[in-house]
């Protein structure tokens, strides 16, 4: 019985592991890449960028991710495990700004440079914990907000008047705050006639954003534009605006450039989305990491450009950055 049992276990285990065995040269330097979760198109695009970047740079890498973008402790455990393989560099997208610090400190001690993907780490907090970040690469969220504001002003004119609604991300989330504040500050400078009627957290949630849009349309009949800190919320707001019969009269802007938003823009519903280019972030991260290993000093922050997607931009299909949309 025991023998048969063991055989069954072994068979199951082999089945489970069979496809995972890495095939690579024994002593070539390997880059370790730790993402949040692959069950999100954003990180999926980042992964493609990393894959293509590694191919072009001629380097090997192995990638890990955890089951959800909330799984902080599992990510720390995964990070510790990755160090066993002694990668040449650790490229990480930490789930929050502190969780990986003990692991990254060890990585530094083992001589690995640490790369921060998408600005998930805070350089000051990391330094306090004894972690040196070689460089941060990602989108500039403040700039993305500004870009949205400038596009709006360009569309409505600097002398435009009316109310504008800002729907922020999850309360307390830094990414959403940066996008919203970038938008608000730039709008105040570029078009003083456009007043912010409200700036409310939509918790990244489509339904919640739709409700907020409804409420503010009722309160401020002169509403001319809605800026949402991500596309999911913008798509919710679009539905409310069209349901209220104000489609085309209220300009709606999202951030991310995800595929649903692209569809909505092409269909003439959503007006614009400030697209991030995670593919480009992943690709450049690998290239720059290679330079760091070759001894080149990188500036602390590298920002990959963002791109305002509109129906015109999408149909003309001329902007060189469009090739990085995935």
């Amino acid at each position, binding site marked *: 019985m025991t023998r048969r049992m063991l055989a069954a276990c072994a068979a199951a285990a082999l089945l489970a592991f069979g496809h*995972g065995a890495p095939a690579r040269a024994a002593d070539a330097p390997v880059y370790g890449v730790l993402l949040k979760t692959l069950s999100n198109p954003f990180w999926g695009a980042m992964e493609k960028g990393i894959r293509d970047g590694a191919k072009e740079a001629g380097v090997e890498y192995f990638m890990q991710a955890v089951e959800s973008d909330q799984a902080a402790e599992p990510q720390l455990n995964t990070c510790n495990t990755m160090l066993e393989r002694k990668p040449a560099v650790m490229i990480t997208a930490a789930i929050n700004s502190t969780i990986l610090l003990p692991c990254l400190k060890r990585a530094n001690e083992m001589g690995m440079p640490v790369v921060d993907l998408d600005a998930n780490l805070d350089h000051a907090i990391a330094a306090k914990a004894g972690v040196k970040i070689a460089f941060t690469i990602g989108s500039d969220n403040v700039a993305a907000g500004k870009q949205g504001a400038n596009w709006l002003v360009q569309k409505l004119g600097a002398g435009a008047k009316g109310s504008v609604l800002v729907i922020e991300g999850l309360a307390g989330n830094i990414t959403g705050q940066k996008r919203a504040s970038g938008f608000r500050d730039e709008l105040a400078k570029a078009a003083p006639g456009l007043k912010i009627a409200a700036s409310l957290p939509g918790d990244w949630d489509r339904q919640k954003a739709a409700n907020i849009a409804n409420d503010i349309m009722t309160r401020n009949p002169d509403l001319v534009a809605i800026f949402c800190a991500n596309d999911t919320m913008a798509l919710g707001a679009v539905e409310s605006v069209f349901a209220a019969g104000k489609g085309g009269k209220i300009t709606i802007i999202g951030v991310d450039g995800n595929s649903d938003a692209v569809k909505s823009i092409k269909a003439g519903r959503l007006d614009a989305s400030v697209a991030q280019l995670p593919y480009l972030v992943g690709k450049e991260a690998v290239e720059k990491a290679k330079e760091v290993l070759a001894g080149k000093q990188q500036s602390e922050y590298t920002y990959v450009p963002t791109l305002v997607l509109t129906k015109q931009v999408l149909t003309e299909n001329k902007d060189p950055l469009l090739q990085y949309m995935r």
Partner: protein
Amino acid sequence: MPDAAAIAAPVRRPGMRFVVRLESLAVLAVLVIVLAVLSPYFLSVSNFLNILLATSVIGVLAYGATFVIAAAGIDLSLGSVLGLSGVVGALSVNELGLPWPFGILACLATGALCGTVNGLLNARAGIPAFIVTLGMLGVARGLGLVLTNGVPVYGLDPVLVYIGQGRPAGVPFPVIVFLLTGGVAHFVLAYTRFGKYALVIGDNEGAARAMGVRVQRQRVALYALSGMMAGLAGLLFMARTNAGDPTGGLNYELTAITATILGGTNLFGGRATIFGTLIGALIMGVLQNGLNLLAVSSFYQQMAIGAVLVLAVWLDQVNRTRARR
């Protein structure tokens, strides 16, 4: 009235208390061998310490689950109580300015308090454990979010951080806590009257009552203990992450219960060992570590853990049926 303890032991042979369900050990052994063959990075002291470290929080949580399940109960609030305990511990030091020992105390007390509430509502008010602890799952998680406004409380006292990140003699501190607590918990469940009563209740509550076991009081104590274990796990979690994180421990109760079942504990009570739970937790830890070393996607990892759980319990069923024949 017969002595309950004498009848209590669900032990067929002397020495069985130490022996874990053979299937669990076999699964663990096979996993270790397979992984050692597949990955050149698997067999090393530092990797084994990694595995133990990664298993510490879940392991301690699973000890708590084991006590409750031994008595045919269930505690679904473990993960949320873990998160709340860490938050309260971090706040009491960072916001109230109390010295670090109170941070530790606050974690344990929060856990024990939640557990006691669970126990009272279950045993005294007669609400089913599944519902009471499901309610606590929501209440504790929500309270943690309210207390922190959803933002982790970052930057703890160095002593607390040492509990999570320190390595006395090269061994991570949480591992020491995990193994020592395991030893004590094993003793309590297998050798004390408290533990034996828990198993009798799980085996046959009516019989336990007839023997004079005060079932209600025992239940409250079991849930309080399980809550306190969640508090201890919350302390370790908080110390490891250097933050009181209100979202900490999300869904950990299911992982803890899985580890318990993998270790041979009967989900319906009456049969349970802490040593088995420790092995169960290690099976999951080894599997996760190995799949990470092999760079297998996290999607497959969840499938693998699910499959191993069903496999282990199935092997157990087969053997049991045979033994009865």
